[in-house]
């Protein structure tokens, strides 16, 4: 529980506009990728639910496997984002 003292809050972060813009753009691209996957999943469940019975691999149906892909995919994209983001000053975070 280090750090919980009455010391003042950390100093304000140094702003670096190009880095902020780069990170924001990267975030929006990855967001669009995930949104496409999530949108497809929701629309298939809503309008083609029978498709969810298909068994694409390992004996697991599309409903369960696509759910797992969305969960694992979120983590993979999150890690990719954390890796590609830049720190103020131009280095990778």
């Amino acid at each position: 529980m280090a750090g919980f003292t009455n010391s003042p809050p950390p100093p304000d972060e140094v702003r670096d506009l190009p880095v902020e813009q780069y990170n924001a753009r990267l975030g929006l691209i990855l967001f669009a990728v995930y949104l496409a996957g999530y949108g497809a999943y929701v629309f298939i469940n809503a309008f083609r639910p029978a498709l969810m019975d298909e068994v694409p691999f390992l004996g697991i149906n599309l409903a369960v496997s696509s759910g797992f892909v969305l969960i694992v995919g979120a983590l993979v994209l999150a890690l990719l984002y954390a890796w590609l983001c830049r720190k103020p000053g131009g280095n990778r975070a």
Partner: protein
Amino acid sequence: MIHDPSRIAVVVFALFVLFTLGISFYLGRRTRTASGYFAAGGHVPWFVNGVAFAGDYLSAASFLGICGMIAFYGYDGFLYSIGYLAGWVVALFVIAEPLKRLGKYTFADALDNKFQSRGIKLMAAISTLVVSVFYLIPQMVGAGVLIKPLLGFPHWAGVLMVGAVVILIVATAGMASTTYVQFFKGSLLLIFSAGLTVMILNRGLKADPSPEASAPQTITVTADGKKLVNGKPQGHGEGQGDLRQVGHVRQLPGGVTETGPVGPVEFLNTVRESEIVLWSSKTATDAEGNKTTTYSPKPTSGADVLRPGNSPTFAGLKSADLTAKLNFLSLMLALFCGTASLPHILIRYYTVKDAAAARKSTVVGIAAIGCFYVLTLFMGLGAMTGGTIDVSNSNMTAPLLAKSFGELPFALISAVAFTTVLGTVSGLIVAASGAVVHDVMTGFLKLEMSDSAKVRVGKLAAVCVGLVAVCLGIVFERMNVNYLVGWAFSVAASANLPALVMLLFWKRTTKEGIIVSVFAGMMTSLGWILLSGDTFKDVYGISADRSPVPFSQPGLVTIPLSFAVLVVVSLLTKRNPQR
């Protein structure tokens, strides 16, 4: 069902509560400043904050509600898991870093950063309070639901107990103690859920084709309030009867009677190829006023269990009914947009030192929450096939599943479920208290307050919000927990997200646009909910057909509406001098 109180559960409960209170008092002695109270001084390490995100987010609805829904209806519960997790993508890629840079204590700080407007402060504070209260109700109801069968206390006592503990946690050290309670709870929830899943897989699946396992059950509440189960007075004494736990596999693939230990993929394969007995319920009232609920077995193929559309909520997905499909789309949109709009989640970004720490903590949060949601599928299906369902109360599924492995797992899982409520409620109360002190008193009313005065008033606000939550938790006892959480997500997504996103990404956004958008999103989503068929049926007790709105979930209409209102009002007020 009557659940006998467990002595081990009481002891473990007490230990958990004492531990959380110990943390609070320890940190409370070190918290003197407003920054320390409302944002833990910005000193929380990113990893701790990430796990605390999980502790904050995985509420009673996630743990008790989703496990119960999967156990009762199969895949439909997992749809909630996916929607809840997907919302974190919005939080990470769109909101986290700019929010951290723009704000200090509350969500209103970020909205108001460019404009310094009292109107924005007030509207954001109202929205924070409304969403927090909506989210608090199901947590408190969940607490009562949990305490009642586990410790034998009445519902109000459970709600009061949670309220008292949470008020103590928040009033002593604010965000600092809340963070560590959530870290503690998030870690335990993951560890015990993983342990439970390993035990489920190790036990494997067993078939029970006996007629006794599939015998229907009835519970009658007589006009004078007595309860009869299968015709006998409800109880565990001689001459009395009680509902039995259900949920079993009737037939395994290949004609075997049990599988022995299985891996996760083999478990899902076997469930898909088995025949499972689900249960449906029907309630009828006779001329003398006796109300009888009949629970009937419904043999269902495993393939059907693992596809959408088995629950009453999503039954329309199997039909050609467009309204049901729009209702589903609306819910999934609200879940996707709601996470990054919940005030108690947003304020957690102010507890770390910079934008990079905000980003890293969200990644940790996604990992922890994602793991938990994968486990919900196994826990739900484990309960469905392991004979551990209380047909009268889906919220008891996870604790009863643990009980099937012994008293100690039961005590631990129940205590974790209890801290689940504690963690989420404390986060919500900190958010609401911050909105009262920081946004309303110093931001809108412009009251000059010293740091220590802010902390004192913040603690007083926490006590008041806690008491309101206790009262609402008692009043809304009979409301469905998941349903209430859906309300909170819809209101948050409609009121907060459009303003936040447009402020970050559209330079022509004006303060008037933000104020009207938050107001419109909040009022239209609340209005839609109050006029929805579900509310007509479950709250007002009148036919859903009389509802003037076509489907119950508002997000599909109110989120785009809030965006549109912001754009139109901003364009109309674009010569704002602040710009």
